[in-house]
Structures are given as structure tokens and as C-alpha cells.
């Protein structure tokens, strides 16, 4: 079956809640160039959990959260401390702090394990989504809407649901303040929105989301979801609001897509299911890789398209100008061979075809071409720009007249317009009148 409520519902919910919570908070980490801080906190939360456990001897959520939140804030304070007194940049400071704290956590876990305590370093890495099986699940979705469902929801899923609500509330209510503090912390502080306070508040929320996600999805997914969705969203948006929404969508794609590609895809090929949290984090990487190619403003593909469009326009401009110049010399219908001389672009014939299609040029027989009326206008506009630029470069910039052709050849295709000038260019050629 495609979706088994008993097997899939709770793991999927846990993954979605964790991914979306992390993505929401991750936006502000990425913007503050603190991406590594998520990494640092999710590692150093481990000793916090173990110490809280060793002190209280329970795994109650409150003790765990207190431990995690304290560890999270301690990480931030320690990073600041190392940065200031160790005289290193923040990346190095974070790296030092979290690796040492994580090591401390591992040592403490071993100590606890010696006392027959149920804490497992493995599940900290990739979580235990698979254990969230619901044995008495109803057969259909209709049977879900009962009180029983709520009672039987595993603690991890409930915790993650609360975390998600908290994260949504935090980001919505303090959107304006978080944006200000991330953009200009000095101004935020002078306006009475203490940037340091907001920074620590954000870190507490990151620590909370991290610890809530731990048991279910593990720290790999937490780190990936803190950074990947926001990084992808940055490529597609240029406003913080839309960036946050976009990051949530990416988190949904990663968690749902990752879950099914970990459970259903392998079984379709007859192989064992893989770790779902790992697959989701992988999905984040794949989405980011795709985004790098297809992003409309920064993507590789759109850049190629923009460049091709520009070179097409330049070729067209150059063709029109070449015919215009031939016309000036009395050659009203230059041949293709004549035009080929000095035409710097790869394909003269295709450019003529395009010009013909745009009704700027009409072929006479197979060899000759002539400008149409609108082609004449467009062509004289290009030549006008070229010669006005030449005039400007000689008169205002002070270049020698024999130095300006190449530069004008480039500038004539670009948006800035040359200023008005006299009736002839530095080489004595007539500057055509403008039509606009």
C-alpha cells in the first residue's frame, strides 16, 4: 500500500513538524551568517541533555528542555567568549566550542550507560522515526478524528507539534524585531529592541527545536533543515517574508519527499528501506543543488539564458547597423557576403532570418537584403547611439578619436543612453536624427 496510517502517519508528522520548525528559525541563522550556530547548538545540546538526565534521573520533557535550553545559551556565550579572548573568527570559535561540548556529551553518555541508563548516542545522530509505529491505528483516514487518536499520539509527535506552534508564533509575532536585529543590530538596540536579547531568544528557540527534534529525527536532519531550506529560499526570493514561506515549502518537500523516497521507493525496487531522516537531509541537498541551477535571479540556467538573449539582441543590432552603414555608402541592398565582413557574430543567416521575422529586414532574392521602414528606424537608432557615444567619449572623457569605436560598439547595446550631441561624430559622419 502507498500510505499505511499505522506505519507512516506519526513518523511523517514528526518529520514534517521538525523540518518546518527548523526551517522557520533557520532563516534568521542564515541571514545573520550564523548557519554554523545551528550545528553548534545541536551538538552541544547533547551534554545538556545528559547532565539534565543525570541530575533529575528522568527523561521528562521539562527536564530535557531545561537542559537543552541552558546548553544552547551556554554555547552562544562560550562562542562569544572564545571569539573575544581567543582572538579567532566566529567560525573557528563555534567549531571549537561544539566539538568539545559534543565530546563531553559522548563521555557523559558512556558514564550513564555504565549505570545501565537508556541513552543512545546513535539515536542522537539519526533519530528513531521508525519506532513511532501506531499499532492500533484505524484503517481509514475517517477513523482519525477521534479523541483516541489524540490519546495515542506518541509523546515525540506532541512535543514537536508544540514546538512548531511555538516557532510559528515566535517568527510571526517578532518578525519585525528579528528582521531589524538581523539587518542592523546597532539600530535595533538604540530603538529599544535589544539585539543581544533577541539573539539569545532566537538561540533558545533553536535549542528548543533541536532538542524536540532529537529523539524523533536526530541531529543530522536538524542541521540540514536549519540551513538548507533557508539557503534555497534565498535563491528564489528577495524579501524576508516570501523567503520564510518559501523555506517552509522546501522543508515540506524535503520531509515528505525524503520520507517516501526512504520507505516506498526502496521497497518498489525490492531493497530494504533506508533511514528516513538521512533521506530527508539528502533531499535538502538535492533541492539546493537544483535551486542553484534553476533560480530565476541567481541560477546558472537563467544566467545562461540572459546571456544568450543579450548576445542575440547585440547580433541583431549589429546586423541593422551594418546594413545602415552600407546604405549610407549608397549600397541600398547589400549582399550577404558584404555583410559578413565585420560581422562579429557566429551566425549571420540566422540573424537575418530573425530580423526578417521581426519585419526589420526583407530579403531581395537569395543574396541581398534591405531594411524595412521600421528596420530603418531601429537601425538609425543604433547608429545614432553609437556615434553619440563616440562624441561623448572624445569630448567629455578625452579619448583620442581613433580609440573610441570599440567602446562605443559595446555601449550602444546597453541601457544607459548617451547624452545629446552635435550633428556629426568625431569621424565626421552624420549622426542620424532620433525618432523618439
Amino acid at each position, binding site marked *: 500500500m502507498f500510505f499505511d496510517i499505522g506505519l507512516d502517519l506519526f513518523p511523517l508528522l514528526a518529520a514534517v513538524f521538525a523540518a518546518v520548525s527548523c526551517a522557520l528559525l533557520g532563516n534568521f541563522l542564515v541571514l545573520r551568517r550564523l548557519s554554523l550556530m545551528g550545528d553548534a547548538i545541536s551538538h552541544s545540546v547533547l551534554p545538556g541533555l545528559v547532565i539534565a538526565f543525570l541530575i533529575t534521573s528522568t527523561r521528562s520533557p521539562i527536564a530535557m528542555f531545561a537542559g537543552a535550553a541552558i546548553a544552547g545559551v551556554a554555547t552562544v556565550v562560550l562562542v562569544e567568549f572564545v571569539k573575544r579572548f581567543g582572538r579567532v573568527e566566529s567560525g573557528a570559535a563555534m567549531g571549537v566550542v561544539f566539538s568539545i561540548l559534543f565530546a563531553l556529551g559522548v563521555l557523559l553518555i558512556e558514564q550513564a550507560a555504565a549505570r545501565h541508563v537508556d541513552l543512545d548516542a546513535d539515536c542522537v545522530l539519526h533519530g528513531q522515526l521508525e519506532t513511532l509505529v501506531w499499532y492500533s491505528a484505524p484503517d481509514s483516514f475517517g477513523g482519525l478524528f477521534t479523541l483516541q487518536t489524540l490519546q495515542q499520539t506518541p509523546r515525540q509527535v506532541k512535543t514537536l507539534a508544540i514546538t512548531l506552534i511555538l516557532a510559528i508564533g515566535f517568527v510571526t509575532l517578532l518578525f519585525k524585531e528579528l528582521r531589524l536585529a538581523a*539587518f542592523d543590530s546597532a539600530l535595533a538596540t538604540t530603538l529599544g529592541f535589544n539585539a543581544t536579547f533577541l539573539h539569545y531568544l532566537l538561540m533558545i528557540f533553536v535549542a528548543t527545536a533541536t532538542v524536540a527534534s532529537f529523539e524523533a529525527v536526530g541531529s543530522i536532519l536538524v542541521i540540514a533543515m536549519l540551513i538548507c531550506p533557508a539557503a534555497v529560499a534565498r535563491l528564489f526570493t528577495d524579501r524576508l517574508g516570501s523567503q520564510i514561506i518559501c523555506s517552509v515549502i522546501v522543508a515540506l518537500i524535503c520531509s515528505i519527499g525524503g520520507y517516501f523516497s526512504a520507505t516506498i521507493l526502496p521497497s518498489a525496487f525490492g531493497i530494504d528501506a533506508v533511514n528516513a531522516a538521512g533521506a530527508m537531509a539528502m533531499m535538502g541537498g538535492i533541492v539546493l543543488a537544483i535551486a542553484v541551477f534553476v533560480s530565476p535571479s541567481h541560477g546558472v540556467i537563467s544566467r545562461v539564458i540572459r546571456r544568450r538573449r543579450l548576445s542575440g539582441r547585440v547580433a541583431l543590432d549589429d546586423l541593422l547597423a551594418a546594413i545602415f552603414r552600407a546604405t549610407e555608402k549608397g549600397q541600398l541592398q547589400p549582399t550577404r557576403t558584404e555583410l559578413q565582413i565585420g560581422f562579429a557574430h557566429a551566425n549571420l543567416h540566422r540573424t537575418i532570418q530573425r530580423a526578417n521575422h521581426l519585419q526589420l529586414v526583407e530579403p531581395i532574392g537569395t543574396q541581398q537584403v534591405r531594411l524595412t521602414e521600421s528596420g530603418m528606424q531601429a537601425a538609425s537608432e543604433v547608429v545614432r547611439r553609437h556615434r553619440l557615444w563616440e562624441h561623448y567619449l572624445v569630448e567629455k572623457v578625452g579619448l583620442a578619436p581613433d580609440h573610441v569605436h570599440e567602446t562605443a560598439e559595446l555601449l550602444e547595446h546597453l541601457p544607459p543612453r548617451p547624452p545629446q550631441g552635435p550633428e556629426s561624430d568625431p569621424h565626421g559622419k552624420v549622426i542620424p536624427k532620433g525618432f523618439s
Partner: protein
Amino acid sequence: MIPQSPSKSSLPNTLEHRPEHSSQSPLSVHAMTVAYHKKPVLWDVDYDATPNKLIAIVGPNGAGKSTFIKSCLGLVPKAAGLVEFWGMPYRRARSRIGYVPQRESVDWDFPVSALDVVAMGRYRHIGWCRPVSRKHKQVALECLDLVGMKPFASRQISQLSGGQQQRVFLARALAQQADLYFMDEPFAGVDAATERAIIEVLRRLKGEGKTVIVVHHDLQSVPEYFDEVILLNMRVVAAGPVREVFTKENLHKTYGGRLTLLSEAAEAVARNEIGV
């Protein structure tokens, strides 16, 4: 351990009893010392700003000009001293004080529009947890218009030129609707059009009865743009009306130390040249 000096604990934490400082002054600084890593940057600074003036802070690099502004605003901790605004501590005067940081201090790739940035100047008026309402956006738009940037309101800030970014910062300061402004090098690296726009805004603010304190680099334009000047080099060398204070002698005192050192260095280079 250094014993705590008895005078320190008995120092009043207001300037009320100090006749040399007036509660009319938008900014009174008393015996302010600021240090970075225990090395003093500002040394026992005393200053009172005259209301409704355009005031330039000039001094050589490393003289503590930005630090002066930042420690007045509580962004950099003071080692000693008191700062009051209209006789009040910063906490209570906050909404009457505007600040334009250096342009390089923020990330201009940040995903916000020019209007978003200007609207940030309204946040104090809006308060915690409330969204930016239409009314405040309208004020922000008017402020953008005042610096000639209205057509760029919806541009992402990375698509603006340096001068345009500086004007956005200025519009944001206007949106704060403060009575006292601190501006950290607003003229640094801007084009002529922006420089004129900034000066226009400064004069407009003065016309509205406000006081503006500007960190400034170009000594030549000080008499043209400003009413008063603070000559700063780790201490206040001189402060007051440009006509009285902005003298060759005072400038030499402010920049002199460095220049002597520089000429010594130049001589050393020259000596080496001979040695070669």
C-alpha cells in the same frame, strides 16, 4: 586588586548638580572615558551640544569619532562618565534620538526593500510585536520622497548604488522623527548628487529645530555645511562655533601629533633610501 576609589561610589548618577551642564542641551557628556581591550580610545571627554545646530565631529583616523557616537548611544560600554540627553538618561530619551550608522555596518544583500529599511525607523513608534501598518508605511514613503528615492521604494537594497543606499539610511533616520540625530560618516564615498541630497536633509532638519551631530571627514566643507564643530583626538581638543574653533592652530593640535609622527616615518624612509 585595585582598591575602589571612594569618589567613584559617591559620584552622582545624574548631572543635575553640575552647573556646567544644562538640561536644555540635547547632549551632555561628562568625563566619559571609553576603552577597547583596556586601551583608552576616548579620554575624559566633556561636551555640551548647543540645541538646533548642525555639528561636525572631525579628527584623524582612530581618534574615536565613531566610538564617541556609539558610547553616547550605549552601543559601546563606557569605562567611566555620564551621558544625558535633555537632562535625561538615554533610556528615557530614546524615542527622541535618531541614529545613522556607517553604511558598511550592514549587509546590503539582506532580503528587504528600500521601503522596508526606511520603515525600520518607525519601529519605535510601532512597538513590540505589532506589524508595520499602512500608516507607518506611508510615513516611510514620504521620507523616501524627501531624499528623492521614492521611485526606488520597492527595489531590493542590493540593487541600489552606494549613494542611493546612503540616502535610504538617511530616509530611515527621518522616519524616526527624532529631535537629535547622530550620523556616522554619511558623506563617505557618495556621489555629488547624494552629497547635495544629504545637505538638503540636514538643513531641513535644522529648519525643524533639530540638532544633528555628524562624523565628517572632509575638512574643507566643514565651514560651508556646519554651524559647530568638535575637534576630537582621543580627547576634545576644541568644540564650539566653526568660526571660533575651526582654526589652523586647533586643527594642528588635532591632527598635529599624527603628522609629526608621519613626517618622522617619512624621514626614516628617506634615510633608508640614502642607505640604499
